[in-house]
């Protein structure tokens, strides 16, 4: 069997912690993304974050922090556009997404030694998660957990029936921006783990499977967290043992489970 020696490596411990935090985020935020039908927005935010990552890299600061800032700004931008619609929302997302990617690639190329890191951001490398990354990821996860705990009934109302919610006085616009902001945080964290290209899979697959088999939001969220953790751990172990890319392994594990669950639930 797999020996547990791998836990004696710090990079493996970091990877495991980051992965478990990511699972918690996917489990909770992913469900809201599915229920509010903001999958495309979330993907747009992830891609736009690349511009910030590139800028941070170029200037020699922490790319992850810059990525978070640009993701949040994009989230707010998209959220504003969708209410004061002169441009349709999906057009706006398309523009943000491509601009972010283009900026990111440009800035990374202009920096030294970009190739290895570019690959890491696009496809993820959980084994490259550092101790400070882990601290940042855990902090963000705790903040998001606290927000969801405090605003659970508000987010449920917003997700189920925004028209009614607004009519009875829920600050719908502020909550939607907050939700997009939480998506932005989550997405940047997931970029570290599975990369920009595959973020959306990890955000939605655990929720999509859990939703099929569980009843009620809390149960679906718990199931989704559990599945996310399983995918990350299995993916991590396989990638460690076979020396294959971790992001792709995690996503393939999730996808296999998704198709299996689709076939079985027929």
């Amino acid at each position, binding site marked *: 069997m797999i020996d547990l020696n791998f836990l004696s490596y710090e990079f493996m411990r970091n990877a495991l912690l980051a992965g478990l935090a990511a699972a918690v985020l996917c489990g909770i935020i992913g469900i809201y993304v599915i229920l509010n039908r903001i999958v495309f927005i979330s993907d747009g935010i992830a891609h736009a974050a690349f511009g910030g990552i590139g800028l941070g890299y170029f200037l020699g600061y922490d790319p992850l922090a810059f990525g978070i800032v640009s993701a949040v700004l994009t989230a707010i931008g998209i959220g504003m556009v969708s209410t004061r619609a002169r441009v349709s929302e999906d057009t706006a997302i398309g523009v943000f997404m491509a601009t972010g990617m283009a900026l990111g690639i440009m800035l990374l190329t202009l920096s030294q030694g970009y190739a290895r890191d570019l690959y890491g951001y696009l496809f993820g490398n959980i084994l490259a998660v550092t101790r400070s990354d882990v601290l940042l990821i855990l902090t963000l996860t705790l903040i998001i957990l606290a927000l969801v705990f*405090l605003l659970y*009934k*508000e987010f449920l109302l917003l997700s189920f029936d925004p028209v*009614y919610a607004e*009519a*009875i006085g829920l600050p719908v616009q502020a909550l939607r921006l907050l939700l997009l902001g939480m998506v932005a945080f989550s997405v940047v964290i997931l970029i570290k783990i599975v990369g920009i290209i595959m973020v959306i899979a990890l955000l939605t697959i655990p929720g999509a499977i859990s939703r099929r088999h569980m009843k009620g939001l809390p149960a679906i969220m718990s199931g989704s967290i559990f599945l996310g953790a399983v995918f990350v751990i299995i993916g991590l172990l396989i990638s460690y043992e076979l020396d294959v890319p971790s992001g792709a392994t995690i996503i393939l594990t999730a996808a296999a489970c998704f198709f299996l669950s689709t076939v079985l639930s027929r």
Partner: protein
Amino acid sequence: MTEGFVKEKALDKVPENMDKIVSIRDLWVCRAEHAVLESISLELFAGDFLGLIGPNGGGKSTLLKVMLGLIKPDRGEITLFGLPPAAARSHVGYMPQKTIFDSSFPVKVLDVVLMGRYSRKGLMRRYGHEDREAAQRALQAVGMQDRADREIGALSGGEQQRVFVARSLVSDPQLLLLDEPTAGVDSAQQTDFYDLLCHLNRDLGIAIVLVSHDVTAISTYVSKIACLNQRLYYHGSRELTSADIEKAYGCPVEMIAHGTPHRVLREHD
């Protein structure tokens, strides 16, 4: 059970001006220099059941939104229970035009009804025992108590509609605003639904404003009718003259003005 509901309401602090619950004076709403609502005046009293009819785009939903405090009038005054509309929300129940939701949305009927308690609870405060009891009572009032633990998507259209009425009732309102609540429900269920509204109005004393296209059906149930097309045609009664209707709809409308039920037969082409 009906009694419990009434008793609960009596214990609530009711603002002053108990009798006059809605007062609107010379109210105007303009969009892009174009009047959507023009010089609207309307008074509603406890126990009223007002049917609000009028052509599409005549401002019916806008007027409801003003009453909910979602749209600020450009001119004029409006108070509900002596308060500005946004401050009176906990006394008002609202049921929007056809609630569109994902039929597999993972939420139980009871939790849907609880959503209506938000206007009483406010941000970040959890629903407690009292809220759950109110939700159970509201479900009982609409005859859906045995559906409390079902998922909302598993109910029929008519049952879902009742649940949404329960959601608007759960804050123990003295006024219900219903925006075309029967859209997309078959006619047998519509009749049941109107009977339910009559029960809420007569037995629980809840004032109702019912926005509808369906003049024929509602005129049998409501106690007052108003017709809205930018201006409001209303005489504080069930009577509307054919001149009112003609002005409101902008074309002659054949109608039987007296006798029950009042009927608008068809619009002139």
